[in-house]
């Protein structure tokens, strides 16, 4: 670095004062961050506020209710919403367990074992993933329909759809397993453990973060799924999940007229527990995203 540049830096520093220049940029950043935080929070704030509006059920141009009350929440009970909620909750529970098992089986195997079809299998799944998932849904729906697993009885059908192919979502978990040194496996095998024992006694205790991450994402998935649930529900009210149901309330202008505030209340009821769960386990989610997704 030349002497002129050093001199230039010194001059600039002396002109502003190093601390002052840093303080200026920091202030700008703080302002930006506050603005960003407000923008990000506003929609949710609005939803919550609107859910307490009593004087009308349709869309209005103002945010703060003129009359406050729990009316909308009470009304939720008399709609199909509780059924949707129950549906989605049950599905989410089952999916959380089964999908985690399947994903972990897949990602552990692909991380640890080197078998002949491994590279081909991963490439095949990559190509398979390039097809829009919806395409499979069209025929699956018809088959499930024949088997009677659609409409009101969509629970087992939809669960099957979610978990059966969840093995394809191995990428993040596999990335995590890859960071556990293979020499641990080898030491355990020399110590006398079978491959199955290596998994249960050595690897799983070390995999707590990714297991929690997988359970969390598996649980949250069904709450937000729209497309697949819509196919399977056949738009029969009792067969919907919360996403399809709440969307149906805003599907047309006439519906919106009557259901807008109900939608807000329903949205809060759905979002609150999921958000709380997420924030509690936030640490694992972040670890999963930054660790597995990036390094994998």
């Amino acid at each position, binding site marked *: 670095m030349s002497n002129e540049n050093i001199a230039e830096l010194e001059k600039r520093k002396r002109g502003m004062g190093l601390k002052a220049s840093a303080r200026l940029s920091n202030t700008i950043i703080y302002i930006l961050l506050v603005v960003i935080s407000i923008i990000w929070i506003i929609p949710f704030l609005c939803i919550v506020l609107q859910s307490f509006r009593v004087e009308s059920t349709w869309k209005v141009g103002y945010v703060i209710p003129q009359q406050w009350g729990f009316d909308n929440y009470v009304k939720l009970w008399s709609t199909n919403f509780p059924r949707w909620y129950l549906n989605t909750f049950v599905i989410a529970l089952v999916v959380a367990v089964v999908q985690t098992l399947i994903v972990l089986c897949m990602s552990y195997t692909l991380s640890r074992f080197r078998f002949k079809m491994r590279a081909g299998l991963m490439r095949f799944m990559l190509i398979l993933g390039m097809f829009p998932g919806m395409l499979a849904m069209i025929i699956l729906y018809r088959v499930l329909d024949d088997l009677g697993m659609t409409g009101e009885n969509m629970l087992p059908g939809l669960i099957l759809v979610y978990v059966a192919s969840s093995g394809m979502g191995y990428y993040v978990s596999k990335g995590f397993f890859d960071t556990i*040194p293979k*020499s*641990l496996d*080898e*030491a*355990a*095998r*020399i*110590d*006398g*453990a079978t491959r199955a*024992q290596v998994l249960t*006694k*050595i690897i799983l*205790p*070390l995999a707590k973060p990714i297991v929690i991450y997988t359970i969390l994402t598996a649980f949250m998935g069904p709450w937000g799924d729209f497309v697949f649930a819509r196919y399977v529900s056949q738009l029969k009210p009792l067969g919907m999940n919360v996403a399809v149901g709440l969307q149906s309330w805003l599907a047309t202008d006439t519906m919106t007229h009557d259901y807008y505030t109900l939608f807000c209340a329903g949205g809060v009821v759905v979002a609150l527990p999921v958000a709380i769960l997420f924030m509690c386990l936030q640490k694992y989610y972040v670890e999963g995203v930054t660790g597995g997704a990036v390094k994998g």
Partner: protein
Amino acid sequence: MASVKLTKVKKIYDNNVVAVHDFDLDIKDKEFVVFVGPSGCGKSTTLRMIAGLEEISEGTIEIDGEVVNDLQPKDRGIAMVFQNYALYPHMTVYDNIAFSLRLQKVPEDVIYEKVTNAAEILGITEYLLRKPRALSGGQRQRVAIGRAMVRNSKVFLMDEPLSNLDAKLRNQMRAEIILLRQKLDTTFIYVTHDQTEAMTLADRIVIMKDGYIMQVGTPEECFDMPNNLFVAEFIGAPKMNVLKTELSQEGGKYFVKPFGVKLEVDGVKGDMLKEKKVPAGEVILGVRPEHIVLAKEGEPGAIPVVLEVNEMMGSELHLHVYTEDGTRLIVRVPTIDLTHEQRENMVNGHKLFITFEGKVMHFFDPESEKNLLV
């Protein structure tokens, strides 16, 4: 305790890369054998094939007379210490060592005895309830050894166990491994890239390069009679000096002419040359730095050189010199052999004379690089 025999063992990877070629070796019971060589020479791969962590492409490996090619690692009667220790992070030191015993359903009181015994020998008793992350490198090293110790295995495998330690600790641990060997009375197979470790620890050394065995022998054999140029340069630090020169025969005596100075090959080496009836011609001459001595100007056999760099090692000087034709050599001179004045003169540009005797000379074929006297 057991013998290990490798017969024509080969390792070929999927992309047809041959990592280990035709490896033949007979390891006797209770022998300490060291596989040594530069990175990628196949030493770790061979060790892992013995352990059962790599598939054997061709050939057989026998442990204690039994062919183990198709046996799982746990059924081969081996124990292994890894380079990065591979301690189970979520278990205490006690549980780490006890792990294999618990898998075999050994009763807890027997486990207690064995583990505490091993801990005492290794000096880690006070760490038994700690987790690996609370231990230093040297301590983890010992736990790894302890884990392998309690298994009463036939063969003890060690894969570069000292590579992750700092220099001082490495020296210390080297001595401890020698003590351990005395206590354990087992067959040891040790892998390293450090020739010092190989020389100090081994009963026999196996030097490897690019998947081939270059030489198998005791440390003395490898040092005094290297099979080829690679072994000669690999063993011993600093590296052996090598130069091309002409070997001539005159009146029943052999002569070499390094840098224009005629030296007779007398002593043991001269006899060997005569015995083997080595023909005159171009050879690669090798001399170790410690075998070159300073000479006085005008002495017969004195080679003129110029000093470039003087490394003060404490008990000796490592002089980096170059000859008239630009060849660089290293000479080791004990400090005690020089006067204070001589030492002062050892600066860049100082003119010196060196020479060496016939008995320290090594001769290698210029094309095959083989030792002409082997």
